[in-house]
């Protein structure tokens, strides 16, 4: 499903941000990724959703070595991955509805086929009254929930979430993690970067610990 082999990463000529990182996830796994600020969690996730190429090592996604994929094949791979960015990356000129629906639209699906699903999910994350609103008027936690809804709307095979609960209250955080767990039950492989020790403990899932770019189990 997902196999990371002896990966190294440096930005430009800077220091190594990731060193010899090796791990794998089977289909249906649910794991946390944690570590102090600046440890390289976001960088590792960026490699996994193909926003960045590693300086060293190989990444296998869905059974194929990513390096061997043609550029034109990458969009299809990306569409199987759901993403929650640490800084949300909502499109400010689109309504919450359109933001959440984005992965479906990009995949060429028609409005009529996904309209109800999108509205249901928006309702589920508690944004029903904000569906028509533009992101710049949302509160921090509301933005984060919209970003999560966008990541899961297409029922991806792999879900990568970068601190998806940093801006919401503990109650809501638990609710959102249940969303991930439900998705996981349906077969989605989930990897979540988080700082929230209590939340991670509550979920009782394996935890990858990064420190200065090195993975310690």
């Amino acid at each position: 499903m997902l196999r990371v082999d002896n990966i190294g990463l440096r930005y430009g000529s800077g220091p190594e941000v990731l060193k010899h990182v090796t791990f794998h996830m089977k289909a249906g796994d649910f794991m946390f990724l944690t570590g102090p600020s600046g440890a390289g969690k976001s960088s590792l996730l960026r490699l996994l959703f193909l926003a960045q190429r590693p300086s060293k090592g190989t990444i296998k996604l869905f059974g194929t070595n990513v390096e061997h994929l043609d550029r034109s094949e990458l969009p299809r791979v990306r569409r199987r991955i759901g993403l929650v960015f640490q800084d949300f990356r909502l499109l400010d000129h689109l309504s919450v509805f359109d933001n959440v629906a984005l992965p479906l639209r990009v995949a060429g699906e028609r409005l009529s086929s996904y309209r109800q699903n999108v509205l249901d999910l928006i309702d589920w994350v508690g944004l029903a009254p904000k569906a028509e609103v533009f992101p710049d008027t949302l509160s921090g936690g509301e933005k984060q929930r919209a970003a999560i809804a966008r990541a899961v709307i297409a029922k991806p095979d792999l879900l990568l979430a970068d601190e998806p609960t940093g801006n919401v209250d503990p109650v809501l955080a638990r609710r959102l993690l249940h969303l991930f767990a439900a998705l996981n039950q349906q077969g989605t492989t989930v990897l979540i970067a988080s700082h929230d020790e209590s939340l991670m403990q509550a979920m009782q899932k394996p935890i990858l610990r990064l420190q200065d770019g090195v993975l310690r189990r």
Partner: protein
Amino acid sequence: MSMQGPMFPKDAAPLRTLVAAMAVMCFLAVLAVGAIILIDRAVTHWSRGLATELTVQVREVSNRDVEQDVAAVLAVLKETAGVREAEALPRAASEELLAPWIGAEGLDKLPVPRLIRVLIDDKTPPDIAALEQQIAAAVPPARLDSHRRWEAELRRMAGTLSILSWLVLALIALSAIAMVVSASRAVLAANQSIVEVLHLVGAEDRFIARAIDRRFLSAGFYAGLIGLAGGVVVFALLGFLGGAEANGVAEAARSLFYIPRGEGRYLLLSFLAVPLAAIIIALLTSRMTLMRMLSSMP
């Protein structure tokens, strides 16, 4: 409910700048194209006015009958294709011309040349040089005066003007390209984060390119419309406001709206070419910039 919003914002400041730049480009280019056409018409108009009337002088020479010579020249002229009218002027007309030189007193004793006024058909003018030789061969003391010097001077000036306005059109086009390129890049730079999100969410390059093209096409369409309309308004104002003074500009500007058969198509085409060029430049730039942007994203 607001659904299916545009992939790229419709009304951002950089896009508005692009529209302004393209509109200004179109406007100036329409002005330049119009100026070229105006100058061309004015030259045709002037040189026609000069060329439609020729004069033949027939000198009175001691051993020839001047009246016979005039008749001979008229005969030649009547047979020439492109000559609409040829008319011998009375002796008085010639005397009037010579009076300031010689004084009226001496004239009646003198052999005064006869004048023949020749009107030429605008559309199918005769070969003036050939006609000149023909007349000289038939009647040696006759001379064709075709106002050549005048025409040459005007043509030289018009040629200069024509070169200048083409040059100006070229320079406007070049600077417009520079500006549109820069404005298009700014539009794409402003939308870089959107491109990135779309890319990461799994959009094909084609999908992103089509969405951006749509923005540029509608921007180009409005800009072209504004620029074209502005140019036409200027020429219309030139034509109508300038009416009081008969200074040639107004007349020529008005003539822009009088489109003779056949020519209309080209005039329209050359005006439409301007916004089309703007749109194509904007599209090409945006496409190139987008592709460079995307190729930097793995």
